[in-house]
């Protein structure tokens, strides 16, 4: 693995040496601690290309869009969830990408690489990078998970469940639990009722991965909604007894892409950075040393150790048969989802 990594670095260096490039900054906008800012990755990229990598961070997708809107030209590479890529492209915040500049493009899983969420008028606006699930994590020492999403509503876990204070996530889960298409649920009253029924179950809301780990370690809850990449980190990096359930009713799947910001001062460097990010070289080290979400690069996934969380849980075709990918949501739908969730929270607070 180390050898393959060295070969990849050498190839990358060779590819860079082939074209005369002025060293410049690559300014990246991403969530903090989400892969692109791993120190070893930044160093390897800087050593191979001579570019300097500078990071800026956002705390919500809305903040990311606001930063792109208010500081045009301030960024080169931006991480955008596939649900927002078309919106950002339509607003002129990002520019089309020439896939020929991405040497790893052919290795990306076609289902993710060619997702309609990344394309506007036939142009490519996002390179599929990582994907993962929002599903249910449980304490392997205390809980027999079964295979149903109903575990969240199981009276055996009353007062022992944690969810995130997020309207879209919770409406999606209730839609899955009531057998609906989460992107276009028709029976909103069923969702309202399902969320209200969660009241006796809920112990707390969590808001960050760090908080989740601390509360789980303090035994504050046994069953909780969690992100697959975070669950992998909790198990690997923190040694917590975290199991991950992909229910038969399905799970919320998300897909993150790397995009090229409009007005980028260094588009060539930006594409090199994106290419390095989707390479097996970066992903395998990221997942083995830190814990990562699943890579959109199928070749990279197959290079993981046999017992890796991503290969074990997300590589199982049967478990992932019922996934529903998050589609773009209109402002009206977001407002409706938020209203349902706030109404539910008002009921929880009573």
């Amino acid at each position, binding site marked *: 693995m180390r050898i393959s990594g060295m070969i990849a670095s050498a190839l990358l260096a060779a590819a860079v040496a082939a074209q005369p490039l002025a060293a410049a900054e690559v300014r990246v906008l991403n969530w903090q601690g989400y892969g692109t800012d791993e120190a070893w990755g930044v160093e390897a990229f800087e050593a191979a290309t001579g570019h300097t990598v500078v990071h800026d961070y956002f705390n919500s997708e809305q903040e990311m869009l606001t930063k792109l809107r208010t500081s045009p030209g301030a960024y080169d590479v931006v991480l955008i969830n596939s649900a927002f890529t078309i919106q950002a492209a339509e607003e002129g915040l990002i520019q089309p990408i020439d896939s020929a500049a991405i040497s790893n493009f052919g290795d990306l899983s076609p289902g993710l690489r060619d997702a309609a969420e990344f394309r506007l008028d036939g142009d490519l606006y996002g390179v599929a990078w990582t994907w993962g699930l929002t599903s249910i994590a449980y304490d392997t020492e205390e809980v027999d998970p079964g295979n149903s999403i109903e575990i969240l509503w199981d009276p055996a876990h009353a007062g022992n469940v944690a969810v995130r204070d997020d309207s879209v996530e919770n409406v999606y889960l209730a839609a899955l639990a009531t057998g609906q298409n989460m992107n276009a649920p028709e029976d909103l009253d069923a969702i309202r009722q399902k969320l209200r029924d969660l009241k006796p179950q*809920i112990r707390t809301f969590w808001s960050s991965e760090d908080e989740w780990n601390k509360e789980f370690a303090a035994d504050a809850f046994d069953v909780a909604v969690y992100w697959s990449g975070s669950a992998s980190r909790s198990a690997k990096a923190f040694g917590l007894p975290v199991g991950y359930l992909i229910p038969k009713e399905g799970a919320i799947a998300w897909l993150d892409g790397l995009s090229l910001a409009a007005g980028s001062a260094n588009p060539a460097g930006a594409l090199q950075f994106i290419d390095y990010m989707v390479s097996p070289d970066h992903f395998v080290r990221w997942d083995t040393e830190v814990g990562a979400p699943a890579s959109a690069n199928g070749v990279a996934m197959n290079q993981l150790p046999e017992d890796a969380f991503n290969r074990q849980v997300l590589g199982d075709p049967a478990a992932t048969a019922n996934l529903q990918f998050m589609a773009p949501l209109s402002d009206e739908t*977001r407002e409706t989802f*938020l209203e349902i969730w*706030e*109404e539910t929270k008002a009921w929880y*607070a*009573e």
Partner: protein
Amino acid sequence: MRIETRRRWAIAWLTGPAYLWLAVTIFLPLSAMLYFSFQKKGPFGKHASEFSLKHYEAFFTKGYLQDLMWRSLEMGFHVTGLCILIGFPAAYWLARRIRGRWREALFLLIVLPFWSNALVRVFSWTIVLRPDGVLDRAVQSVIPGLPAIDLTDSYPAIIIGLVHSYLPYMILTCFLSLQAIDESLLEAARSLGARSWTILVRIILPLAVPGLAAGSILIFVPVIGSFFEPRLLGGPKGTVIGTVIEEQFTVVSNWPLGGALSFILLAIVLLILAVAAPVLKNHMRTT
């Protein structure tokens, strides 16, 4: 005539900067928000501006928004009431019993929380109130074997955090009122045979009403609009109108609904003040 003109210029020069400052910092942002609250959609994206009352209508047609507004008002009354119960005796003690250097030291202790960031204060409370936290351990060390004290994610936790944050306002305003009371009034009452209780209820309390009122307003108004204290200390029990308003801005960029709810909150505050003002005035006149 010339003196008259000159005086006018002088007034304009002297008061102008203050009014300009008020206009720029308060009037402009507020009127921009008032404008958005009557728009169908927020300022983002490409769409024509369109007048709409739907965000104000939402408050009157959606029961849960009224429930949350009521909850916030209740929270405001609880916090203000507790601040009076704790703050008034503390101010009385400081103003009339403590003298000299001790008073300065105690004042410093009261004002000290103001110098720390509000978020830091709230997070400190989560450390104190959680199971196996500071409070739990302290109680367990005195009476071992008690069931664990867990106040996280509860209404009492929100009230504790808010009272701690806003108590200094009440102490400081009451202190000013109490200190201004003429000692000879109390001596006169005593010489006429009034007991301490009578002096407190008939003389001191009525004279302290301006301080109590000012403190109550300073506390009540921000508390009913508070959002991060309820969210962080209340968790699933921490939903109030303030958190709903905040989420309109941060989660869905729905400035119009957030603005409309803010102005309804402002209207309710003004209504409460309008009702309270004559009562207070009347009270001060009769005593």
